[in-house]
């Protein structure tokens, strides 16, 4: 644990040095209970004291950047968050000289869903959390439980190829050896299902969507925000009616507008209050983008999203000859 | 109003008047003859007009309760519902939920001097009260109307303006923002013309409506002319859905514009949180 403590101190020192020149620095602090973190907007020394970088600190701070246009802010970023920043830079939605990036070499963050499933009682009854090196000691409803960190890490972390920030002004922690991205087993299993089963899955799953648009608003790449076509009546893409088909239509809008732009930070799925596995859609589309355009969003600066450009001869699009 | 407050009455468009390039007035008659006969409202109350399939929007009833051959609504084309309304012609069917909201405090105005200050489409809610007062002229002292728009073609109620100007029992002043060929009336912004007119606040009620920016400067001008907050009345615009104080979007603090308004005195507005 001492490694993380010294990293936290190192990070705090780095932020402290720049705090005066920044509107704020976005990191994390403990949230409403010891098991949950929440984004922290650091504006003062006192705020800085509350900073945490534990694996419970999951939120992607890049989501907030477009709300600070014209101001200079700092972000504490993990590998996946830095990809969102790169993509925003590539699309000229933010300016490089308006963000200072405090990069964390990341060992992964937790999935609250996995914690819920692993605990002996509802995590709502959590009393205390202690972070060990590779485990979480959680007191819940009077019972002690020790969870192996590896077993409750988010899927995106288990299969992450970019744990270290790909762009940063300050880099904290040890860099990782190169890793190969992989597809989670549940993804492969779902893709292998027949059309009928997949359709039935979405029909049922979309029936519990309440169209709160948390998936959209938490998405760092969903920059239309207040002007999303889903809530426009002119043109009318979708009914306000909350039914599986309209709810799914929204996911189609989201996926379509993220084609070649999604940085797989997993925020949409994390934010969903009714646990809809949205990453099934995102990962699948990203795989298609990789296969056809050899493109991954947010892994290199100065790249154009593939749907904003073209080649006269597309090497990997097979023209249908019929 | 029906027992089901969401249920509109069907009405037929009897006449469509093209007021300006983007404003039309619609004259409606309820299909149920008995309902039309017994329909009663007071100046300043509003109604929800439905174009079924597009939706519903709120407009003031700008005809006078003293002239009940039809209900008139003036509509500026800005969004989905108003665009569809503008496509209507005589004979077409619409839904009406009316009257909604609170009217102008007409009784309190009796025996007083009345000063109307209207800007653009903001003339619509003033028209109902103005016409009403012309029809009950003896109840009031001097009546003055200052009505302005961006340009001469943006003035609504063109058909009625000559009559208003010609009448001896009211003083009507028209103005536009800039000089236009053939324009024989005042040129300038409403608040400035108002200051130039220099009306006395003595026993006077000022009623103003128009775009937010015009209201803002008109209020300043009225204050400069020593009008007290209680002497200034305005009527507000908000996005509304239910029209009966339930759906929760048109509130300013505790007050629902659809239910407690849309007519407020400046004194009342000052008591409310500043969220216009």
């Amino acid at each position: 644990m001492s490694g993380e403590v010294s990293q936290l101190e190192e990070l705090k020192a780095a932020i402290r040095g720049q705090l005066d020149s920044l509107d704020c620095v976005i990191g994390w602090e403990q949230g409403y209970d010891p098991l949950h973190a929440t984004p922290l907007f650091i504006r003062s020394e006192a705020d800085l004291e509350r900073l945490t970088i534990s694996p419970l600190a999951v939120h992607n701070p890049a989501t907030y950047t477009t709300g600070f246009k014209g101001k200079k802010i700092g972000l504490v970023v993990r590998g996946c968050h830095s990809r969102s920043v790169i993509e925003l830079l590539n699309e000229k939605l933010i300016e490089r000289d308006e963000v200072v990036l405090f990069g964390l070499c990341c060992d992964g963050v937790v999935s609250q869903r996995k914690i819920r499933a692993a605990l002996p009682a509802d995590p709502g009854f959590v009393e205390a959390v202690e972070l060990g090196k590779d485990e979480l000691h959680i007191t819940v409803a009077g019972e002690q439980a020790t969870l192996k960190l590896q077993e409750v890490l988010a899927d995106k972390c288990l299969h992450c190829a970019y744990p270290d920030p790909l762009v940063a002004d300050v880099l904290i922690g040890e860099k990782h050896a190169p890793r190969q991205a992989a597809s989670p087993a549940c993804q492969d299993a779902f893709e292998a299902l027949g059309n009928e089963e997949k359709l039935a899955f979405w029909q049922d799953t979309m029936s519990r969507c309440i169209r709160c648009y948390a998936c959209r608003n938490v998405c760092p790449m969903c920059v239309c925000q207040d002007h999303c076509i889903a809530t426009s009546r002119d043109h009318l893409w979708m009914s306000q009616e909350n039914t599986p088909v309209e709810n799914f239509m929204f996911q189609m809008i989201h996926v379509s507008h993220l084609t070649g732009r999604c940085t797989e930070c997993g925020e949409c799925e994390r934010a969903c209050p009714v646990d809809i596995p949205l990453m099934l859609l995102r990962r699948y589309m990203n795989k298609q983008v990789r296969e056809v355009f050899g493109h991954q969003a947010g892994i290199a600066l100065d790249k154009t999203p593939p749907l904003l450009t073209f080649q006269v001869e597309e090497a990997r699009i097979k023209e249908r000859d019929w | 109003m029906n027992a089901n407050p969401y249920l509109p009455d069907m009405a037929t468009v009897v006449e469509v008047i093209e007021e300006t390039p983007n404003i039309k007035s619609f004259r409606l008659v309820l299909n149920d003859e008995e309902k039309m006969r017994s329909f009663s409202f007071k100046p300043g109350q509003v109604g929800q007009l439905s174009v079924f399939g597009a939706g519903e929007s709120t407009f003031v009833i700008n005809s006078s309760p003293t002239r009940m051959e039809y209900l008139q609504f003036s509509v500026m084309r800005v969004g989905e519902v108003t665009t569809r309304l503008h496509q209507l012609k005589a004979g077409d069917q619409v839904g009406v939920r009316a009257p909604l909201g609170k009217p102008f405090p007409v009784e309190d105005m009796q025996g007083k001097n009345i000063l109307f200050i209207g800007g653009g489409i903001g003339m619509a809610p003033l028209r109902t009260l103005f016409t009403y007062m012309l029809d009950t002229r003896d109840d009031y002292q001097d009546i003055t109307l200052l009505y302005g728009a961006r340009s001469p073609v943006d003035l609504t109620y063109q058909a009625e303006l000559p009559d208003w100007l010609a009448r001896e029992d009211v003083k009507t002043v028209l103005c536009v923002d800039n000089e236009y060929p053939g324009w024989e009336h005042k040129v300038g912004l409403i608040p400035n013309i108002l200051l130039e007119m220099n009306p006395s606040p003595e026993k006077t009620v000022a009623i103003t409506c128009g775009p937010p920016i015009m209201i803002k400067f008109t209020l300043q001008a009225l204050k400069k002319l020593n009008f007290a907050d209680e002497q200034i009345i305005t009527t507000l615009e908000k996005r509304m859905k239910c029209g009966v104080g339930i759906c929760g979007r048109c509130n300013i603090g505790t007050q629902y514009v659809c239910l407690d308004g849309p007519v407020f005195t400046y004194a009342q507005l000052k008591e409310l949180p500043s969220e216009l």
Partner: protein
Amino acid sequence: MERFITQDNLQRFAAGLAEKKNVLAPVASGGTTTFRRLRPGMQLDFSRMAVISPKDATFPRNETLLTVQHYPEESGKRMELQEHLPEGEMVVIGCRPCGTRGKLVFDPVYETQAIKDPYYIRRRDGATFITLACARPETTCFCHSVGSGPADEEGSDILLTAVEGGFVAKAVTEKGEQLLGDSLFEDAGAKAEEAAASNASARKLMGEAHDFSSAAEKLLKRFDDMDFWQTQSDKCISCGACTYMCPTCYCFNITDDEAGLVSRRLRTWDNCMSHTFTLEGSGHNPRSTKAHRLKNRMGHKFSYYPDLHGGQIACCGCGRCIKQCPAGVDIRQVVMAAQEYPDER
């Protein structure tokens, strides 16, 4: 009247009801627990508080207010309007006291001297609430601070309390008493005391209540302090998770859909945190930023509503908005920050 029912029999009882009426109950599905229409073969899931509140029972997310049949112009026929009032009864099983109490916030708005919302009133009057008392508070629970508690009976027809082997069922209304006449219920005997002890212990576990009584005034004092609201709303992402999860949020939208010659007027849940909520036709928006919108959300629940309705706070303390907020905005903290804000000298 207090009766006892075993866990298995409660499932049977619910299934039996579901054959005759629409039953809404917490069901585990796809890694979460939400209220769903109980259908044959579905199991009740009482292991956690359902993520979505039971609001759907009295205020469904979609409701057709009316439909209109149009005719082609050449037919010479006038369009016909059809009112759609809800029919039938509904039983909600396994809601918590907080969720049940949500409708109490609706009542003074949806049924006044002058205006009666027939859609809501019919649903409410046709609904039976079989509420489950909470044995233990979650970290997000604060029902005791908004005038309620973990075994609050208000609004319920039956209150269930979990005891060894099953539940003690207490009839709160006549409707509830009739249901307890079912042969699946047994004599409660000593179980009734066990239930009372459990309810008392749950209340004790909640600790001291926070006093929100100064919130109405203090929130208004901060109304023009946009710096305060910007800071409070920093992490808010302006989505609708909080409002849609909320048992007391009663705002709605009305929109028309049309297909062919039929159009219908639809009432759907709306969300005051969305930009379009107050966007006017002219493009003007009185609540143009998330700071303005959060201010109204807090103000409505803890200031305007209590001002209009005898001090009752428009919040049932269920904590769903805190738990499900993607950014962890804590309504308690926002209101407390306004309460604790030093008064100007």
